[in-house]
């Protein structure tokens, strides 16, 4: 069974790279380039996990997180932040905002999949 995953990321190359890597590792990947589309896709697709960039146009990752966690149908879907915000304290801030996991960019292609699975295991 393919794991249904939603990837919200505004950078075109990063979006392509991560979805390629995820699909090759057996994920069924839906993509959104902004928060609003991301939330709509989350509602229609009910993914098992959401990978969320934090710096996004218009609605940033924090706002997306808030919307997702306030929505009855979506609040139980684990959200993993995949972000370039890697200054001290960013991780804590993002987890505090409701993310179930945090992966720093640049991702490590050798461990990206296991990192995601680990976040899912720890979060549940």
């Amino acid at each position, binding site marked *: 069974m393919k794991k249904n995953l939603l990837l919200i990321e505004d*950078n075109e*190359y*990063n979006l392509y*790279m*991560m979805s*390629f*890597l995820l699909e*090759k590792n057996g994920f069924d990947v839906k993509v959104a380039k902004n928060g609003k589309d991301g939330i709509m896709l989350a509602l229609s697709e009910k993914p098992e996990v959401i990978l969320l960039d934090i*710096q996004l146009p218009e609605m940033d990752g924090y706002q997306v997180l808030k919307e997702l966690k306030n929505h009855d149908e979506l609040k139980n879907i684990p959200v993993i932040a995949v972000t*370039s*915000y*890697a*200054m*001290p*304290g960013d991780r804590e801030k993002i987890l505090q905002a409701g993310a179930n996991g945090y992966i*720093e*960019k*640049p*991702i*490590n*292609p*050798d461990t*990206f999949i296991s990192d995601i699975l680990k976040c899912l295991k720890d979060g549940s």
Partner: protein
Amino acid sequence: MFLRDYMVVIPGWVFFLIVLGIGILITSVTWALILKRRVEDRTKKLKMALEKAQEADRLKSAFLAAMSHELRTPLNSIIGFTGILLKGLAGPLNEEQKRQLLMVKESSQHLLALINDILDISKIEAGELKLFPSRFDLRASLEKLIGMCRHFTEKKGLYLEFNITEGVHEVIADQKRLEQVLINLLTNAVKFTEKGGITVTCTADQKNYIISVKDTGIGINGNYLPLIFEPFRQIDSGLSRKYEGTGLGLSISKRLIEMMGGKIFVESEPGKGSNFTVVLPKNMEGQDEKESSLDRG
């Protein structure tokens, strides 16, 4: 009329004193007013300078955060796609293509290390780096790092011995930052050693753990010894051409260990090897209290 009357009553010398007094009074008041104005001026200027400095500080932090973010985003694609290609996920590669992509991978990792180091040192210099102390098992942490290091020593045909005495258990420190320091010492040892190997020891006294990383490598010239904990010294010394690195690792390590209340020092002999020692308080949080209570006692 009146004036003349007074002049009759008041002797000349008193009149002189009064005029002198009034003169002094007027001068003093004028001076006081000028001084007050000057003080106000200076205060205003100082306040402006302070605001300007605070603004510059804020801008510097914002700049660093933005730089970190902006550099990571393209680096994510470079490292990601390189990894995908190397894994053969986008199709098979011939040996030469693999070789070249491995060089891209190494270069991008070097660039990432540089970004992380420059950010670290800037944060430390600005006094903005915060430590996150937690309680963890130092032995397990050391064993993990030595395990990670073994791959590299085996590749170079070096031995890797370790000796952790029985008393080494729990420590309260910033685990991520301590491991960063130890990884730095271990990778330096591997990098600068061509034959022989590396010995890691850890002992404990009442208050501290003493961790040492000893190698049989090229050693450090006595002239350079006092400088190696200063930023960018490897680059200065011209060694960077032969040995890759940011030249920031040791200066970051020193600051981090000092922030945890510890010390780091080196003994070295050119051609024989180097021995880096870290003295780490068992509890970085209790450190200040203990010291101040000792002072009082």
